[in-house]
């Protein structure tokens, strides 16, 4: 997939670029308004990560430009402004999602993957990874055509891992993804462990390979 990262903060831009760059992915970056406009007007991307506050102009203007030109690029707004109005304005102008800073790269990756999936697999709601087959519409999973009964959170967890294949995902990121604001309730992440243990057990019982690995006590990794 081809991704454009429009973000003026160098540190963040580089991290995102590094996280997304892998075999089969092309990442381009823009650090200001003019550069971003030049790129979006010349090339097309699977997904554009758009910061709203940019040197030289507003990300909203870029969004307006894309909408005016019936551009079908997926757009994910990454903004420091967590206000409902901004969010609604962005989504009204055709953005596909809105992520507030600070965020975990794994969360960003999951959101971007979801956007691209929606854009590219028109009508096809199957997500296949080796022997694992996920029906995104019915929210069910099968391993080797054998259905696996997953709870809502286990299903979300599986999707999250698949979007971040080969990456170490921190427990914090997982907790925030599954519980949102309720996350800060528990400082030990034992309850995450039990979810992951259950998911892993169910997949293994259905005959899948063992993909989920603990990573040095601070996270998990879905190996491919």
């Amino acid at each position, binding site marked *: 997939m081809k991704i454009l990262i429009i973000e003026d*903060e160098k*540190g*963040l831009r580089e*991290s*995102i670029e*590094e*996280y997304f760059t892998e075999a089969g992915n092309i990442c381009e970056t823009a650090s200001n308004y003019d550069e971003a406009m030049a790129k979006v007007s010349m090339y097309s991307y699977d997904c554009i990560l758009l910061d709203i506050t940019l040197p030289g102009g507003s990300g909203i203007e870029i969004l307006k430009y894309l909408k005016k030109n019936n551009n079908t690029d997926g757009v994910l707004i990454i903004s*420091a*402004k*967590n*206000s*409902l*109005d901004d969010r609604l304005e962005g989504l009204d102008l055709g953005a596909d999602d809105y992520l*507030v*800073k*600070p*965020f*975990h*790269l*794994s969360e960003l990756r999951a959101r971007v993957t979801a956007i691209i999936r929606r854009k590219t697999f028109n009508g096809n709601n199957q997500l296949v990874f080796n022997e694992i087959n996920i029906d995104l519409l019915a929210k069910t999973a099968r391993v080797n055509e054998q259905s696996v009964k997953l709870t809502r*959170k286990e299903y979300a967890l599986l999707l999250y891992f698949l979007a971040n294949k080969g*990456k*170490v995902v*921190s*427990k*914090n*990121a997982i907790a*925030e993804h599954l*519980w949102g*604001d*309720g*996350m*800060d*309730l*528990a*400082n030990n992440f*034992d*309850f995450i462990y*039990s*979810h992951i243990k259950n998911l892993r057990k169910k997949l293994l019982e259905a005959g899948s390979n063992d993909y989920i690995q603990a*990573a*040095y*006590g*601070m*996270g998990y990794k879905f190996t491919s």
Partner: protein
Amino acid sequence: MKLITRYNRVNLLTTVIVMLITGFIYYQVISLILINQLEKNLEVEEDEIFEYVDLNHHLPQVFKSNDQQITFTEARPGSVKRQFINTVYRNYNNAKYARRHPHRNDEEFETGRGLITSVTVGNKYYKILIVVSTVEAEDLIQIIFGITAGVILLLFVTLYMTNRLLLNRLWQPFYYLLKELRLFNITDNKDIPLEKTNIDEFEELNKAIISMSTRVKDDYKELKTFTENASHELLTPLAVINSKLDTLIQTDSFTLKQSKLLSDLYSGVSKLTRLNQSLLLLVKIENRLLETKEDIDLKLHIEDMLVQFEEIFLDKQLHVMADLSEKELITSTYLVDILLNNLLGNAIRHNHAGGEIKIKLTDALLVIQNTGATGPLKHDEIFARFHKSTESEGSGLGLTISRQICENLNFTLNYSYQSLYHIFTVNF
């Protein structure tokens, strides 16, 4: 003490003192004048006696008179010194007197003024005593004094009433202003409504208050803007730290010690993030930027939330008892979510393993009560910013935000402690 009471007290006291003094002087002066008049009459009578003696060389006949009594007594020559005296006046069957004092006997003693003088007739020396009644004069004094006292009393009452009415009226703008000042809320965008007045002092007070409130509000707004900006500015570096951490853990393998350090870094950053978000949220709620109106089925909302927290209840072995009845709200879902999240979150966070949480929802109120490790908390302190128990891992803003939300939604949030339960009640 009210100003008017104080003013009246001083004012009336001075009036009474001044009036008493003037009354006394008045009485004395009038008495003096009247006595003086009587003495002149006595001297006229004395002159008449002298003239008569000069002319006739014998004593005049003594008449029984209504007005005066004259007595002659022989005395040793030179023994009488001429002087005025206070004496008694013997009143005989006096028609005028009897009419006035019918209950008295025919013969009465009245106060009188007398003149002792002497005359020599031939070779005989006589002491003359002329006495007039002072009753008439005293009656006059009494009448005059009575009228004066009446006038004084009238003046007194009038003064009191006028002061009362006038002062109450005059101070009206002041009381109005006081009422408005009590209602003044720094977070409100309303100005203090002022009444027009043509009294200079109040006009100045109004002006001063307008300028003060504007200044206070401006300062407060500036402070809020500062908080908001500072929080915003913090978000980007936080995002950088977060993303760098996420990148760092993708690199080579770590030792146990390193991964422990990384975990601590993660939780530090996420705590900072939440704190920052709470601050931003608080500013937004105070600025009333989150006032959308949506239909909310509160019962359904709470049930959803309980499902969401299920794993955490299990993890902490908390028994949750919910008694929910239907309740509809028309307000911001976002705010209600945060409110429920905070209250329920507190009930979980400050609970002990194996504890209880009871949730009750009726049409009028929502009660969330939980067992806890600590005893009763101080009602005033728990809603203060950054107040938290030593072992709390929260931001210390949760209850402040909750209360602010309740204020914005016109609910009230109260805390109480009853038989081992911490109870938070939201009255709709």
